[in-house]
């Protein structure tokens, strides 16, 4: 579970195949971003160039840097992820605990130890000089700084999307490592070969920013990383389907806090893009500080933790509950009655469908809709925004519908056990035609679905209406119905299977009909 609902991108989505290959699974950090596949593609390219491709450093060395910096950030998600990765790479737990607590006690090679010293003192020329004196090549130093940037990027993403842990969270030991000692220096710390002004990422950057920012010129030892960074900018900063570029540049310049997002009524896609833009900004900020050479990106990200909220969010996820109705609700609460009309206009279809799902009768649903909105208005003063307004409103509609149903049919059970799901066996098991929606007109299809839905028992109809027709996230549907998530899922499955049974005769090719049989298991 995360702050943003997921979308199934299918097994062929290439970044997930890459993560599967490299991590052995797809981390929930990325599953939480499926509303914007383009950003996952950009992230995958960046991570591949920095972490998955062996250059001067080996993967275990890079994972060690990520582990120590995740601990320094107090980021439980990333700490657990990299801990697990190092375990899979063969590092015993006892040693990992020592590394996380104090890498100098972790029996690390002098080179790995020097890398960790470097990234824990980023931002000073002395740190780079000390690393070079320990025998680290310029390429190794650059790669370590890139991994440090990647660490900040991943930690910011994990905090921002509220990623659920992939593994049982590990306690982060109290440790002394700090992260980013200095501020952006005008003096470059590493030599950077001249790639020529026509180098493709430079051409792209110049077209976008009017110049090639210094932080990119400082990385010419690794042209493939420059290409991945240009890709990230192209896929995260430039598209305007969620947020305008101007808005994103504002975020890059000033950062954001969650309360501001709430006040501005951001959609999930906009909030997600805000998180990813902030993560990208924090990545470049670390590079800027770590590599020296002058400032292109605002030093707003200099705080030790991911800059997502003014309060300390180390050990608990930030609350990114973005409610697009927040502003309108606030207006009603301050006495603007026209704003309530606006809320009704936005949500009457949802309320109507919820009531049809409960009452099974469109006319009665219309009647109950008036009750629902009047109750909502009466109680709006006490609405505190702990859930989305739409979820709260659907709860009122559901309760209004149930109350009417009980008055009408007191014997109909809405609360019976869901154990009967186990006994349900589909009977229609002939293959459907390849493209069933081509068989009927839209009006005929609507009629088929509506008839099928209306024949479902009320408890299945209610959940199917909220989840599949209104497309509420399962958590919101469960909340509106006052059910637990497992019970909601069980009812949803049963409702879907029953609807499938009802629709099947219309979509099985005619030659295959008439041989219905039960499914044995």
């Amino acid at each position, binding site marked *: 579970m995360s702050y943003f609902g*997921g979308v*199934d991108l299918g097994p062929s989505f290439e970044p997930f195949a890459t993560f*599967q290959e490299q991590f052995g*699974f*797809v981390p929930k950090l990325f599953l939480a971003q499926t509303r914007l596949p383009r950003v996952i593609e950009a992230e995958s390219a960046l991570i591949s160039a920095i972490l998955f491709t062996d250059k001067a450093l080996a993967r275990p060395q890079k994972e060690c840097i990520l582990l120590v910096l995740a601990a320094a950030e107090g980021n439980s998600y990333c700490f657990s992820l990299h801990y697990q990765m190092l375990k899979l790479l063969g590092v015993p737990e006892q040693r990992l605990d020592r590394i996380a607590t104090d890498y100098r006690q972790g029996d690390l090679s002098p080179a790995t130890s020097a890398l960790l010293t470097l990234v824990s003192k980023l931002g000073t020329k002395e740190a780079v000089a000390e690393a070079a004196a320990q025998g680290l090549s310029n390429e190794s130093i650059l790669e370590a700084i890139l991994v440090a940037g990647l660490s900040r990027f991943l930690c910011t993403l994990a905090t921002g999307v509220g990623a659920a842990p992939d593994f049982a969270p590990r306690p982060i030991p109290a440790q002394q490592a700090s992260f980013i000692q200095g501020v952006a220096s005008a003096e470059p710390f590493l030599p950077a070969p001249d790639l020529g002004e026509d180098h493709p990422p430079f051409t792209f950057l110049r077209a976008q920013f009017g110049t090639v920012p210094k932080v990119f010129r400082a990385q010419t030892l690794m042209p493939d990383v420059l290409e991945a960074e240009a890709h990230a900018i192209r896929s995260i900063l430039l598209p305007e389907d969620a947020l305008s570029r101007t808005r994103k540049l504002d975020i890059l310049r000033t950062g954001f806090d969650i309360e501001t997002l709430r006040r501005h009524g951001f959609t999930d896609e906009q909030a997600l893009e805000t998180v990813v833009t902030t993560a990208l900004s924090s990545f470049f900020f670390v590079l800027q500080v770590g590599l020296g050479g002058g400032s292109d990106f605002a030093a707003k990200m200099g705080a030790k933790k991911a800059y997502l909220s003014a309060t300390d969010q180390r050990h608990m996820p930030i609350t990114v509950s973005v409610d697009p109705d927040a502003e309108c609700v606030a207006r009603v609460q301050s006495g603007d*009655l026209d704003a*309530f*009309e606006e809320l*009704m*206009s936005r949500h*009457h*279809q949802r309320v*109507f*469908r919820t009531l*049809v799902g409960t009452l099974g009768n*469109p006319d009665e649903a*219309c009647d109950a*809709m*008036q009750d629902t*909105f*009047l109750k909502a*208005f009466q109680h709006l003063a006490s609405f505190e925004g702990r859930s989305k307004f739409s979820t709260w409103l659907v709860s009122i509609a559901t309760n209004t519908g149930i109350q009417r149903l009980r008055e009408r049919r007191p014997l109909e059970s809405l609360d019976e056990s869901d154990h009967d*799901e*186990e006994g*349900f066996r*589909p009977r*229609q*098991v*002939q*293959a*459907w035609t390849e493209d*069933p*929606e081509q068989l009927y007109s*839209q009006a005929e*299809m*609507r009629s088929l*679905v*509506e008839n099928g*839905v209306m024949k479902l028992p009320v408890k299945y109809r209610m959940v*199917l*209406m909220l989840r*599949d*027709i209104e*497309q509420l996230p*399962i958590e919101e549907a469960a909340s509106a119905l006052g059910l637990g998530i497992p019970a909601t*899922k*069980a009812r*949803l*499955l049963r409702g*879907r*299977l029953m*609807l*499938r049974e009802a*629709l*099947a005769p219309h*979509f099985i090719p005619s030659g295959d009909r008439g041989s219905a049989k039960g*499914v*044995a298991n």
Partner: protein
Amino acid sequence: MAEIGNYLEGDVADEVRHQLEHHLSHCQTCTILVDSSRKTLKIVTDTGTFDLPEATFKPIAERIMARIRGDGK
């Protein structure tokens, strides 16, 4: 059966998903069940059912607003 529901939602652990997909690779009945359930879901999602016509909603909204404004006086 419950795992098929989770599978349709894209909400199963990788290990379970692999097991299910392995099973689906040689079980025609379950393959049909999953395929037709997906199609059901797509039809329901795409069809745009139970729309309340604006002409029906308008007088309801007017009644509600009249009540609200009346109460507010």
